[in-house]
């Protein structure tokens, strides 16, 4: 492949043609490999698969030719040359052995290459997904993405393991046979081709608009089944709680019935041409055609009887390409669709990295005229942006705690997600120590900024690994530091109760409750010990012990840190140095809590309302906040396969 080729490769074009790169471009490093790049190192292997398969398949003709030669010798008038007969038999047997060895080798190599290629695909996909903006995940189900990495890559199997060998053999062998048969008798060769022509004639009948429409209906009916079963299973608790399994159950069954109906129509439409094709290609029919032609020619004296044999033996093989196309076609189509989905994921522009990362000077955080909008994905609204932040100017001084307050939908959660670069602003900039976040390398960014968001993802790994996860590998802390963080987060005692303490594997040795998981996340942030901390004060802490742990952690931090917190509790607000009241994507009021209360504006009203709703009595329990909903973060209807984005919400 030449350089020009690479540039015109759709994959490469898609990755470099990302969003307008602000500051640095994505150029800096070597462009990531594409599908073709992944296949290139295996070209010799593919070539050997093809060559071995061809040798094997052609050698497979030897025994048939041996029978032909045997016939010629035996049917020839005069004495039979015994030595010649045995030579012919030996050649036939040798051909069989060659075929056995070569096709086995070809198929073995093909499958091994397939394993390598699939691994490389999966690694590439994982690597790419590790670099797309985190906000991108919010709109996708991790179950679906996992399907791309798993099933779709597996679906490529026929392309890699079978297509090169099998398809080539399916065409080469008939071509060789055809050439040979022409040398024997051209008339009978043409007659032998008649079934193939008949079969091919059925193909247009299978591709009529009606058939294609049925195929589309078939696909969409299949999709409806999948949707209705998801709805059925997800809503099963509601379905049962409200007596009888009426609604969703019925919907599933009617989707199933509709599907069966479509399936029936599809089969019915296909059955005639399919049966016609099957008949034309069936061995008895081919033999009948060859024998009819042969009898005509032999009785007419135009053909030596022995010359009929090659047609009886090789003629059947001529139908192979048509049959191979028919068999492999569905698989190949499915593989094509799978490759399409893989390419789609690979084409997602990664979060641009700067060419030459700039180091921040201090850790003051500034937001300058920040605007941000999510792309509206609702039907009929595609392409429009739903603006959530409309021009935010804000400075977070080191050594202060800034509390963001505001009604639900005011853009709080979006605002805090800009700091760890889950998204880049659509306009304006976020600066850290005077440097635009986009000019900071991601390594540097995450060494500076850590975050605790509401939903906690625990990995199926040891407790210690889970806590140490947020610390860059290079400066990975020792066990003591992990324990210290766990202690401060109030989870140390609980961990010691687990069967294998810090070495317990979560999900295997032990399960943690929601509150415990949240405390573990706090320990992560404590261990990361970064100068900038972003916190979504979880609204729904599972128990008071967790709330206490979080508060203790917050107070133990302090010092020179820059802290930004979405505050839901009045006490957090009261303790903050600065309160930012956000309304409708803009800063409505800003100042010290007492100052704002004295102003008696929006914040003061909000405060009074909250106090009335929560009351002083229940203090910590009054955590009324928001669960991000709406276009902000569409609620995920699939709790098991898709609580995606982990801590992003």
């Amino acid at each position, binding site marked *: 492949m030449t350089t020009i080729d690479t540039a015109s490769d759709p994959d490469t074009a898609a990755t470099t043609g990302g969003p307008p790169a602000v500051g640095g471009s994505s150029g800096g490093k070597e462009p990531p490999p594409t599908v073709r790049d992944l296949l290139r190192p295996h070209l010799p292997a593919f070539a050997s698969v093809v060559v071995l398969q061809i040798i094997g398949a052609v050698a497979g003709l030897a*025994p048939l030719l041996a029978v032909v030669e045997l016939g010629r010798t035996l049917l020839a008038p005069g004495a039979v040359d015994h030595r010649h007969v045995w030579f012919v*038999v030996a050649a036939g047997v040798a051909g069989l*052995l060659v075929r056995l060895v070569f*096709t*086995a080798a070809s*198929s*073995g190599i093909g*499958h*091994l290459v397939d394993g390598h290629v699939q691994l490389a695909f*999966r*690694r590439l996909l994982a690597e790419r997904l*590790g*670099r797309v903006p*985190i906000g991108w*995940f919010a709109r996708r189900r991790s*179950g679906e993405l*996992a399907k791309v990495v*798993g099933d779709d890559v597996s679906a490529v199997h026929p392309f890699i393991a079978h297509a090169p060998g099998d398809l080539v053999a399916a065409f080469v062998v008939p071509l060789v046979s055809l050439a040979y048969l022409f040398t024997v008798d051209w008339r009978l060769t043409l007659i032998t081709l008649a079934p193939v022509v008949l079969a091919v004639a059925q193909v247009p009948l299978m591709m009529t608009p009606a058939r294609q429409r049925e195929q589309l209906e078939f696909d969409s009916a299949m999709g409806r089944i*999948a*949707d209705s079963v998801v709805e059925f*299973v997800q809503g*099963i*608790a509601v379905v*049962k709680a409200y*007596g009888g*399994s*009426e609604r969703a*159950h019925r919907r599933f*069954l009617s989707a*199933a019935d509709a*599907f*069966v109906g479509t399936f029936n129509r599809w089969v019915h439409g296909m059955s005639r041409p399919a*049966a016609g094709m*099957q*008949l034309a290609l*069936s061995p008895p029919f081919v033999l009948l055609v060859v*024998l009819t032609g042969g009898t005509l020619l032999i009785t007419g004296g135009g053909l030596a009887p022995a010359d009929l044999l090659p047609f009886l*033996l090789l003629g059947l093989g001529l139908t192979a390409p048509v049959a191979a196309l028919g068999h492999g076609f569905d698989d190949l189509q499915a593989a094509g669709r799978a490759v399409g989905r893989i390419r789609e994921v690979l084409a997602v522009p990664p979060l641009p990295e700067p060419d030459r990362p700039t180091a921040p000077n201090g850790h003051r955080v500034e937001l300058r005229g920040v605007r941000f909008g999510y792309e509206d994905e609702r039907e009929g609204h595609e392409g429009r942006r739903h603006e959530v932040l409309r021009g935010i100017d804000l400075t977070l001084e080191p050594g202060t705690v800034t509390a963001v307050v505001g009604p*639900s939908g005011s853009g709080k959660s979006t605002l805090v997600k800009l700091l760890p670069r889950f998204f880049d602003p659509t306009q304006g900039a976020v600066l850290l120590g005077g440097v635009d976040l986009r000019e900071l390398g991601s390594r540097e960014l995450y060494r500076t900024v850590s975050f605790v968001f509401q939903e906690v*993802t625990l*990995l199926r790994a040891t407790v210690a690994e889970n806590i140490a*996860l947020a610390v*860059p590998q290079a400066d990975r802390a020792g066990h003591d530091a992990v324990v210290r963080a766990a202690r401060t987060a109030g989870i140390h005692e609980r961990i010691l109760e687990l069967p294998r303490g810090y070495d317990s594997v979560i999900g295997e040795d032990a*399960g943690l*409750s929601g509150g415990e998981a949240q405390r573990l996340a706090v320990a992560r942030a404590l261990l990361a010990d970064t100068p900038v901390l972003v916190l979504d004060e979880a609204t*729904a802490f*599972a128990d008071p*012990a967790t709330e206490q742990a979080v508060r203790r952690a917050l107070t133990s931090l302090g010092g020179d840190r820059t802290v930004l917190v979405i505050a839901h*509790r*009045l006490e957090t607000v*009261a303790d903050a140095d600065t309160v930012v009241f956000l309304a409708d994507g803009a800063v409505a009021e800003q100042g010290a809590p007492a100052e704002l209360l004295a102003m008696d504006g929006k914040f003061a009203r909000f405060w009074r*309302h909250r106090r009335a*709703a929560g*009351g002083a*009595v229940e*203090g910590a329990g009054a955590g009324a*906040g928001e*669960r991000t909903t709406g276009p902000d973060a569409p609620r995920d*209807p699939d709790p*098991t396969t898709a609580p995606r984005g982990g801590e992003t919400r």
Partner: protein
Amino acid sequence: MIRTLLRVLGHEYARPVRRTVALMTAAAVAEGLSYALLVPLLRALFGSTPEDAWPWLAAFGAAVAGCAVLRFVSDLSGFRAGTSLLRGMYHRLGDHLARLPIGWFRGGRLGEVSVLASQGVLQAMGVIAHLLAPFVSALVTPLTVLAVLLAFNWQLGLAALAAAPLVAAVQVWTARSMAATDAERHRRDHEATGRVVEYLQAQPVLRAGGHGGERFRLLDDSLRNMRDASRRSTLAALPGSLGLTLVVQAMFSVLLVVGAYLALDGSVGAAEVLAILVLAARCADPLLSLAGIGGRLRAARQELGRLDAVLSTRPLPEPAEPAQPASHGLEFESVSFRHGDRRVLDGLSLSVPQGGRLAVVGPSGAGKSTLLQLVARFYDVEAGAVRMGGVDVRAMRTEDLMARIAIVFQDVYLFDGTIEENVRIGRPGADEAAVRAAASAARLDEVVERLPGGWAAQVGEGGARLSGGERQRVSIARALLKDAPVVLLDEVTSALDPVNEAAVHEGIERLMAGRTVVMVAHRMRTVQRADRVAFLDGGRIVEQGGHDELLRRGGRYAGFWEIAAGMGTGVGVGVASGEG
């Protein structure tokens, strides 16, 4: 295989399946028999009077036509049986899922069942429509040809016959050795999928730790395991397909050698030997295709096994003589329950008089939600009993039980449809006025007014177009409309903004009026609505009594709130100074 299929389907489908198999076998036998005509036909053509071939050719033509008709009829029958089985399978699966205990649908089940119901059923049914015919004909046609060979020449026939047990042995051996590697491979694939999901979900924290672009060990290990498992299964399949090829080719070689020997010997005519070799070639191809078909059958069989496992999961037993409770007090008597290995409830006893309100409080993981779920029979208890009005819930019909309970879940699921449809689920036959009344009592009417489309507004899949608070209001309206004597509340832990919160509390207050209530509470404000409190920890009741009484006692319960209250007080002071 067929037996599993029939067990999964239920035996009412046995007849069409048997009929289809019989037709397919007949078509395959007819094909094999039609080849018998080739021997006299070729003998004539290779002999001195080729004209004698015409009648034989006509006979062969008739036989081919017969075969084609049989094949067409059997294919049609296969498709018919396949589609009616498909429909039956969907219905059977749907009905069965609806009868399984709700507790069964936990964890990874959702994804599993979705895949099974959409693709799994189709793949398993594809056995009848697509795999059975090639399989039967690949097996039966060569066997018939073998019989023909034996009839024409016993020496050659015997030589070919020797291959039959070998082919069978190779098939059986392959199936056995592949079962283990296939299972291993499935497990590895499953594990890798889990890791990928985990990797995607944990992206934020992984990137913070610098695991973003580079390889993340846990994921990479599982991807490599997947590759290794696939390699192992390829290598494991190799001896099987090699063995089959070897046996079939050896058979052909032996026939070639024996045929040549007999022809040179003069004991069998050259024409006959050649005809038999043509027949042998007809035997070899279908036999070789067995390896591929076998692999696809194994895949389908695995899918069938998974369907079988779901269908043989026992639904909640229904009582033979259902009882009806006269009153609606609740009672837990020495209830024990475990999730897997974890003991959730441990000999718990508790009672709520009719019209009483019990708040269940405790640390997370104490078994609070399970308590509610046992009343509604999401699961059955392991030991002890849950009673309603003195009647064991297991002695009631599920419908009767459910008709007496209204549940407001933590996480509200709405069906893709209009708001009204979702409220009506509470009581499908309710009149307009009742629906409106329930909605306004739950303060859902405000939401409806705001929404474009009003009552007919679509809520989206799972209710995604509504906010958390709005979904809660729908679920409360649903419960109000149902008007059941027992109310189970799992406190809304996902926090709401003040407006929604006030509305939801108001709705819940109305819902509780005059009913027996068990509520899981995380907030003191909720607890104060109850007339009794049970403090749960480690699956047992640690303390029980009135809220004030328990606070005075200064035990675990008081300690639990003290954490919160202490913080609250501290803040109260801070706020007071702020305001001052």
